[in-house]
């Protein structure tokens, strides 16, 4: 039965090969079973993508998903989830970014499913029921800012989701970028879009989101806004954005980029406030404004003006490689957004190339004469361009890591801890000590984030497994409160927590954190702590019930999340995942940490009801989750 409240109730299907456009109802049973944006995307991908397809071929399926609260007044519900087979990992490709989804929903669609490949550059126009495939030959070759400007001008009031040259050239870590700055990173979603000759989707929505119980919904919305506006750090988040997280993390995680690379976090923060931070930027329906309008006021790149998704992610981590040349770091960030390439995967790829160059594994004959030097902005900016336009060794580095390893040799393994073919995590690189001595492998402090690096179906990524355990010395009381907020039943607390500081079962807590964060993905929610602190799972369930009229408990939402996680796992297994893909590379960790990793994987698999050998859901698990029909598809073991 079609869902009509809380959702637009429709899925738009576009086949770029046949140019067929159709609309089908969104079935409320699918929403109840899988929860929303991420879950229904997972179902659509699993069912529509044939096993073993080329992620850069016409058979890949590219899906936008929007949750129940998109285009409502629930703060932070501005995101959109894209799902496809990842050109980067070859497994599950997904990412969430702000903007765009709410406009698609107002146009009348909860999901947009794009298949096939156009015979030339096209863009998809979605203006309510007026949907068409348009010629994009004039846009092809333009960067993200130029493309967005052109479509904003052609369609006043529109929102735009597009790729830049990196996506066109199928760089395996190309982004899709919404309205110039909200980025779908890491998985290479931009390459999947570019491989379909799809330059952009432009949307204008003139419809309304109807609610089952508007007054009840609005009462909860009011309470959440009040709690958010009264939060202790509300205005600090607006002022500093995610920079607010850098110093406490650096201090308590002993993960101090500054100590590794010689930059001073306080100095950079001061520079950011004085010379970088421009106007406030918000996401739809959010009063916080934690994104950074960048208006560079000094230096050789003075005048650069753009919006950074996240001051810590998109600026600070780049700064860490080039400090104190902050001006160049800003230029790098702006260039990456223009090219439509993942900031994290690109900077780590270039770090990797610099290490290879310094150790003589590659030379100027490979780089087209470009000298690669650590902390040298020209090395970063020059190599970024070579990757985007696939020149010299940039062509190889733009592809999957397996190709680099094959070409350069297995010795590349000692430079990067690549998990599922992806660099992007804070333990991927060797680090130097404070005196700039030998390169060493960082010791892992196990928590939900560091275990999540290994078992996330999309590969390493920060948000999906982030929790308060990212910082040590968490009191028993704060752990207990946190667990109740994310929906751990009181009766499970004894098995999960020891009652001491940092006393938690890492594998079991990871399973709960994963489910809660998946609920946030299902609602297409922001995952910044300021937002998630006011959106406990009971509140989300109340909002969902009021919006849809489907009586939903916190347990129901977490069960839908668990189904989604299992379906994502089944997809990766179907595409060839083994337990080895859930590990750091052999020899990367110190001996005792290798054993800890294996024990954690055993415990995590067991917590889900997956077998030890490969992390495959057992038949009993699939029966418990009402996912038996997916067992028929292939790999599930008895």
């Amino acid at each position, binding site marked *: 039965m079609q869902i009509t409240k809380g959702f637009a109730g429709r899925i738009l299907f576009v086949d770029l090969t046949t140019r067929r456009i159709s609309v089908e109802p969104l079935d409320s049973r699918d929403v109840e079973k899988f929860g929303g944006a991420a879950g229904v995307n997972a179902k659509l991908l699993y069912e529509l993508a044939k096993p073993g397809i080329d992620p850069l071929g016409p058979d890949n399926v590219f899906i936008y998903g929007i949750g129940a609260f998109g285009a409502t*007044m629930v703060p932070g519900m501005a995101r959109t989830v894209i799902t496809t087979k990842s050109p980067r990992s070859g497994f599950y490709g997904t990412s969430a970014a702000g903007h765009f989804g709410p406009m698609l929903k107002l146009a009348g669609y909860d999901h947009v499913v794009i298949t096939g490949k156009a015979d030339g550059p096209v863009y998809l126009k979605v203006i309510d029921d007026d949907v068409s495939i348009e010629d994009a030959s004039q846009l092809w070759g333009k960067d993200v800012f130029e493309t967005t400007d052109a479509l904003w001008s052609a369609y006043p009031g529109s929102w735009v989701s597009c790729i830049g040259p990196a996506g066109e050239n199928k760089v395996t870590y190309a982004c899709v970028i919404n309205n110039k700055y909200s980025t779908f990173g890491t998985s290479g979603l931009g390459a999947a879009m570019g491989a379909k000759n799809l330059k952009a989707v432009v949307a204008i929505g003139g419809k309304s989101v109807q609610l089952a119980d508007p007054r009840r919904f*609005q009462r909860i919305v009011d309470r959440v806004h009040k709690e958010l506006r009264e939060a202790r750090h509300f205005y600090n988040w607006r002022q500093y954005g995610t920079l607010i997280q850098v110093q406490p993390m650096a201090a308590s995680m002993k993960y101090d980029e500054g100590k590794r690379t010689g930059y001073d976090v306080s100095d950079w923060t001061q520079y950011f406030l004085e010379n970088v931070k421009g106007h406030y*930027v918000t996401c739809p329906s959010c009063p916080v404004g934690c994104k950074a309008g960048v208006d560079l006021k000094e230096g050789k790149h003075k005048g650069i003006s753009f919006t950074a998704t996240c001051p810590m992610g998109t600026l600070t981590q780049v700064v860490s490689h080039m400090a104190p040349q902050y001006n160049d770091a800003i230029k790098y960030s702006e260039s990456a957004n223009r090219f439509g390439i993942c900031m994290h995967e690109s900077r780590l790829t270039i770090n990797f190339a610099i290490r290879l160059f310094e150790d003589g594994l590659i030379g100027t004959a490979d780089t087209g004469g470009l000298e690669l030097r650590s902390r040298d902005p020209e090395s970063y900016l020059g190599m970024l361009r070579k990757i985007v336009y696939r020149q010299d060794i940039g062509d190889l580095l733009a592809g999957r890591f397996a190709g680099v390893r094959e070409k350069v040799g297995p010795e590349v393994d000692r430079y990067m801890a690549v998990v599922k073919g992806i660099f992007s995590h804070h333990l991927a690189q060797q680090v130097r000590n404070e005196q700039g001595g030998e390169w060493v492998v960082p010791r892992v402090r196990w928590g939900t984030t560091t275990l999540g690096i290994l078992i996330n179906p999309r590969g390493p990524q920060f948000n999906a497994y982030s929790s308060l355990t990212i910082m040590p010395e968490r009191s028993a009381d704060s752990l207990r409160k946190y667990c109740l907020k994310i929906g751990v039943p009181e009766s499970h607390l004894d098995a999960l927590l020891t009652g001491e500081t940092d006393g938690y079962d890492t594998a079991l807590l990871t399973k709960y954190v994963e489910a809660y964060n998946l609920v946030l993905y299902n609602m297409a929610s922001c995952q910044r702590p300021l937002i998630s602190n006011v959106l406990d799972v009971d509140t989300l369930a109340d909002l969902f019930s009021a919006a849809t009229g489907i009586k939903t408990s916190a347990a129901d939402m977490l069960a839908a999340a668990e189904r989604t996680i299992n379906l994502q796992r089944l997809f990766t297994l179907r595409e060839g995942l083994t337990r080895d893909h859930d590990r750091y590379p052999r020899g990367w960790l110190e001996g005792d940490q290798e054993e800890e990793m294996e024990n954690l994987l055993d415990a995590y698999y067991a917590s889900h009801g997956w077998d030890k050998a490969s992390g495959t859901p057992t038949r009993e698990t699939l029966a418990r989750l009402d996912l038996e029909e997916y067992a028929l598809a292939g790999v599930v073991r008895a």
Partner: protein
Amino acid sequence: MSAKGEMKAISDKCTGCLLCQFACSYMKTRAYSVSQALLSVARAGMREKYTVSFKEECDACGYCVKYCAFDAISRKRGRS
């Protein structure tokens, strides 16, 4: 000035969150929409700059003001 008051906008302060439009459409239709809102938030230029304006039909109820966290809209009280 309407009977309820007069709405004012300082467009320079607007960040484009759309909460005012959703609040307005909720108040008037009990659903969320941009097109049904009685005020407009239009992108001005190619950055996150916006022009806020009120439509003729706006009755200056002021419900939108409550949700603007940037003081971009306000209501001057009227005769009643």
